[in-house]
């Protein structure tokens, strides 16, 4: 039997118009003329624009006439008709070539996977993932045990004293000594923040996140929260950029392009910039608040409230259709150890290379600012703002650092809190304000790249006063109610 090649069976009107359009095409497209014609018939904007430019006005008018004629002659959109016909052929082909042996079996993975999408099982599972994944691994282990060890046993005990004494011995000028060592030096502050505080936290987050990613849990979470997300103008699809934001908001802003509508992309970008702490902030905050469970609850509740409130208001302000949601749910899989480790490693490497020059630069800027006295002016200024929030003036320094990079600010907060300068209430207010506070420079640059200058700038001018106003209100409420003493 000679096997015939099969082609989708499109309606005669479409075939005829496609051939006529294809015959008119002179430009080069990288796709076969007939395919270009079909895309034009489906009114694909990008390809139509390309054809209009390459073929010139007169030929484009004849092409456009064909498109309009076909549209008028069909009850359904061309794209829909074509999709249905292709689907028909796909079904025929699949039936012909696919054979099922001993029936289709439901695997354990599928049964568990389906359960996680039902609220009754899904919400407890989510809480377990948050508790073990984020709290225990990132907060207690990464930001607690590992950071304490690197900070206390390595940097404070060996590296810093060693660097201080060597620079003092080798460099006779105190001004230059300060560049490398002492309170704000490149090694004693910049590198210490990067290696001892940020890297272990970010690393442990990436490890947890890789396992979650590879298991196929995220799309299930997306379906679970779809209803809530609809209220704030997002679809369940936004779960992926948003959860990714807990790793690195910069990375997440880039991923927000997977969202379907411009409205959704703008809302997600704003929420990432405002209410989602990155893993460095999250780790530091979790470990700082770990000894005050009530403070931790207040912080988390407050941010969730802001997230939902701002999302809801933005969705009301920005007109547009509610997003439609369709997402493929992959099977639950046992993560492959090699992929989890490679992925964690490449992300840590990327992150480290990204932050080290910036942290070094920050040290240099602070050094310059110290020499000129400008740094002190800034610290005093931010100290005054900190005062409004009921915080000690030194907290202003952490805000100043956070301006430069989210994680840098978090590390500053860690330093401040480990010296015992903050009460639980102050810690909560500082943590909440720092979380809301401006996106870091890296995130801002991605916001500009993805959403344009106008929107990025508008968001920052909203976030800046909003963060401090929110901190002020939170402090007032906590003072008035005395929840945290």
């Amino acid at each position: 039997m000679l096997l015939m090649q099969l082609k989708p069976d499109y309606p005669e009107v479409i075939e005829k118009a496609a051939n006529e359009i294809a015959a008119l095409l002179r430009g080069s497209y990288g796709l076969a003329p007939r395919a270009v014609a079909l895309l034009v018939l489906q009114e694909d904007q990008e390809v139509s624009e390309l054809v209009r430019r390459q073929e010139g006005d007169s030929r484009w008018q004849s092409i456009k006439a064909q498109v309009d004629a076909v549209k008028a002659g069909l009850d359904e959109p061309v794209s829909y008709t074509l999709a249905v016909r292709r689907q028909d052929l796909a079904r025929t082909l699949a039936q012909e070539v696919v054979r099922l042996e001993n029936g289709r079996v439901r695997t354990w993975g599928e049964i568990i996977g389906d359960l996680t999408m039902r609220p009754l099982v899904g919400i407890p599972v989510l809480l377990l993932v948050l508790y073990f994944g984020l709290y225990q691994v990132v907060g207690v282990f990464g930001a607690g045990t590992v950071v304490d060890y690197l900070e206390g046993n390595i940097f404070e005990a060996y590296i810093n004293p060693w660097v201080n004494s060597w620079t003092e011995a080798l460099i006779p000028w105190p001004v230059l000594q300060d560049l490398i060592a002492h309170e704000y030096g490149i090694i004693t502050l910049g590198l210490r923040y990067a290696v001892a505080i940020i890297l272990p936290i970010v690393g442990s987050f990436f490890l947890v996140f890789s396992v979650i990613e590879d298991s196929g849990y995220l799309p299930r979470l997306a379906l679970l929260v779809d209803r809530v997300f609809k209220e704030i103008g997002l679809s369940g699809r936004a779960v992926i950029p948003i959860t990714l934001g807990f790793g690195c908001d910069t990375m997440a802003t880039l991923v927000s392009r997977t969202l379907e509508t411009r409205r959704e992309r703008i809302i997600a970008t704003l929420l990432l910039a405002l209410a989602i702490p990155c893993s460095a902030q999250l780790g530091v905050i979790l470990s700082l608040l770990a000894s005050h469970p009530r403070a931790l609850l207040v912080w988390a509740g407050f941010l969730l409230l802001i997230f939902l409130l701002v999302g809801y208001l933005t969705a009301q302000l920005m007109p547009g259709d509610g997003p439609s949601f369709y997402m493929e749910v992959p099977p639950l899989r046992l993560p492959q150890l090699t992929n989890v480790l490679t992925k964690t490693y490449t992300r840590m490497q990327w992150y480290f290379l990204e932050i080290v020059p910036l942290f070094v630069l920050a040290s240099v800027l602070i050094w310059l600012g110290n020499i000129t006295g400008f740094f002190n002016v800034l610290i005093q200024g931010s100290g005054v703002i900190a005062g409004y929030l009921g915080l000690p003036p030194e907290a202003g320094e952490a805000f100043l650092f956070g301006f430069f990079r989210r994680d840098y600010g978090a590390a500053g907060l860690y330093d401040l809190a480990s010296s015992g300068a903050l009460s639980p209430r102050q810690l909560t207010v500082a943590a909440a304000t720092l979380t809301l506070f401006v996106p870091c420079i890296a995130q801002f640059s991605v916001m500009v790249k993805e959403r344009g200058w106008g929107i990025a700038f508008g968001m920052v001018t909203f976030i800046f006063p909003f963060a401090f106003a929110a901190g002020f209100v939170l402090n007032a409420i906590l003072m008035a109610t005395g929840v945290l003493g």
Partner: protein
Amino acid sequence: MDCCQNESWWRRLTKRVRQNPKEHEEQGPLKKVALVGNPNVGKSVLFNRLTGVYVVVSNYPGTTVEVSRGRGRFGGVQMEVIDTPGMYSLLPITEEERVARRLLISEHPSVVLHVVDGRNLERMLPLTLQLIEAGQPLILVINVMDEARRLGICIDTDLLAARLGVPVVPVAATLNEGIDLLRKKVAEIAAYAA
């Protein structure tokens, strides 16, 4: 989600200085092999296999949002391999779907690998039909064959190849199964291309 496969900002700044311009001239343009297909079918795993370059792989649709490039050897010839974000159709809806189509339009790859999930052939074939319509130098790569077999799914790849008029290669990329055969097919198709 791939900041990670991007170079860091300061590397990008210094890249121009470090790159040796002569290297490119001597080799001439490499032939291009593009990986396209629905989200979450394993394009990136296959890319890692073919090039030895690691790009981030996860178990959810939309892991790759930008194009990554690497080099691989096919039948003794070095070619550029391009990984793309997933797309459902040649008529794109989201921004990252547009990325993949733009690549086909502007870069004229010598071989296009349409990667599909063997457990769900029916849902993936419409894109294959569109790519054939578009006259792409196509190979249909049926991935995830290991899981398909476990589910008791058998696919007659010879029959499918005859029906579509393009080569069909079954693989299990995570297990490195069928990759050698795929390399051979790529070399064959690329030989036709100018």
